[in-house]
């Protein structure tokens, strides 16, 4: 059942006092837990939990022809599936908007930040390049799937290794990973979504809070301060002051989130 209106009123009331139902501050994330290499079949993988929200992300590689307009660059494709398994609200069938948006948000974050170095994924110009697939699956939705997916994608990519490529037979030897890491840049892209509920701004909403979110802004940036993707969602308008505030919150939170996952990026 969606968050009831009267509970929503209480949530707003409490937020105005600087508190949340689970005791967190407005700019505090729930506990983030990460497992790397959860899949024996993916070339890179991660399971990320933020509170009870859980996603798993896998990185798979293949070798194909490059796109005609980028003959010396590898390919990137990010797909996300909101599994019906993970929530009574997700229906079986072709991906609907939330899944598509999530995939595209993560795609833009990885692509625009140039985190994945596509130019280093060329095998033979015009003929053969590495294709990188990042597949995101929700396992339990308790709010803030977007940020969890972002972390999962970045960690899975950072820890991914190239599989052996049999040049002679033009086949990938899956199951045999080389020691070569998938080329990524030093600057780590972190995605943080900030929500406006009533007069307050929060990060990392639980599902209960997400139900009463009036406007949200997803910002991808590095801790060094570059921003490379922004998306505003939900139906209420934001003033310039509010957006500026959300940019500040996003920057602060990004640094905190980064420090909690730093150890997995070595």
């Amino acid at each position, binding site marked *: 059942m969606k968050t009831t209106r009267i509970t929503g009123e209480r949530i707003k009331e409490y937020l105005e006092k600087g508190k949340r139902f689970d005791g967190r501050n407005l700019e505090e994330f729930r506990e983030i837990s990460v497992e790397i290499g959860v*899949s*024996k*079949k*993916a070339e890179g*993988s991660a399971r990320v939990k933020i509170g*009870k929200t859980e996603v*798993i992300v*896998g*990185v*798979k590689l*293949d070798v194909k022809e490059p796109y005609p307009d980028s003959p010396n660059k590898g390919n990137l494709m990010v*797909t996300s*599936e909101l*599994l*019906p*398994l*993970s*929530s*009574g609200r997700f229906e*079986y069938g*072709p*991906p609907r908007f939330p899944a598509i948006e999530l995939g595209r948000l993560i795609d833009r974050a990885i692509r625009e930040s140039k985190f994945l170095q596509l130019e280093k994924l060329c095998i033979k110009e015009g003929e053969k390049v590495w294709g990188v*697939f990042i*597949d995101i*699956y929700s*396992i*339990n*939705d*308790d709010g803030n799937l977007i940020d969890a997916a972002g972390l999962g994608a970045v960690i899975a990519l950072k820890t991914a290794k190239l599989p052996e490529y049999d040049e002679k037979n033009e086949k990938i030897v*899956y*199951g045999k990973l080389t020691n070569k890491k998938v080329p990524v840049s030093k600057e780590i892209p972190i995605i943080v979504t900030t929500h406006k509920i009533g007069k307050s701004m929060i990060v990392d909403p639980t599902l209960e809070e997400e139900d009463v979110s009036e406007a949200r802004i997803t910002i991808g940036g590095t801790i060094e301060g570059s921003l490379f993707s922004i998306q505003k969602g939900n139906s209420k308008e934001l003033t310039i002051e509010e957006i500026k505030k959300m940019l500040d919150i996003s920057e602060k939170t990004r640094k905190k989130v980064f420090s909690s996952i730093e150890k997995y990026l070595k």
Partner: protein
Amino acid sequence: MATKTFKRPDGRKVDETRPMQAKVGVVPNADGSALFSFGDTIAIAAVYGPKKMHPQHQQDPEKGTLRCRYNMISFSVDDRIRPGPSRRSTEISKITEWSLEPSLLIKNYPNMVIDVHVNILQANASTRCAGINAAAMALAHAGIPMKNIVSSVSIGKLDKNLVVDLNKDEEDWEEGEGSTDIPITMTPNGEITHIQLDGRITKEQLKEGIELARKSTKEIYEVQKKALKDSIKT
């Protein structure tokens, strides 16, 4: 002429399953959920329901409907699977329904549906069996009235040798008569709710294989039972 001293590639005895893992409650949002694995083959299942069946024209006024959906995630195998249903997953979804339905007591849920979602996180053969085992636990965990919990295992024949719980290497066995795959699901009383055959086998060996499955499913049942019991502290 099966020989009990047949050497399996991973060193297992002919009647030995891979190490099994079972756990319930792995998806907090679901009404019931479970994980089950045979070695590297990992399946999770989540149950939502009973709830009103939509679309309305699929409602059955006489009893509840079980609806299973099986799917493998893209990186569960070496060669990435394009997301979305396939003919194989559609067939296995139906097989899963048929294997579980005889156990359910859902006459009292007219016009309602029980959705069971099975996802294979990692595949090393016997995925449908792992999925059925997880689904059976998840249904019990969800409080669905049931006669019993079914258990599923794949019986294989490698050349002339019967084995239990095929892995991928064995599924691809090419020596002699090659590989035959027989997934079977049984109730604790030995009733068969699902059986398929893929390969080549004599009637006598098949009967022997079914007996092997009986023994194996008893062991699997104990694993499922323990997972359900362990999840509640008293």
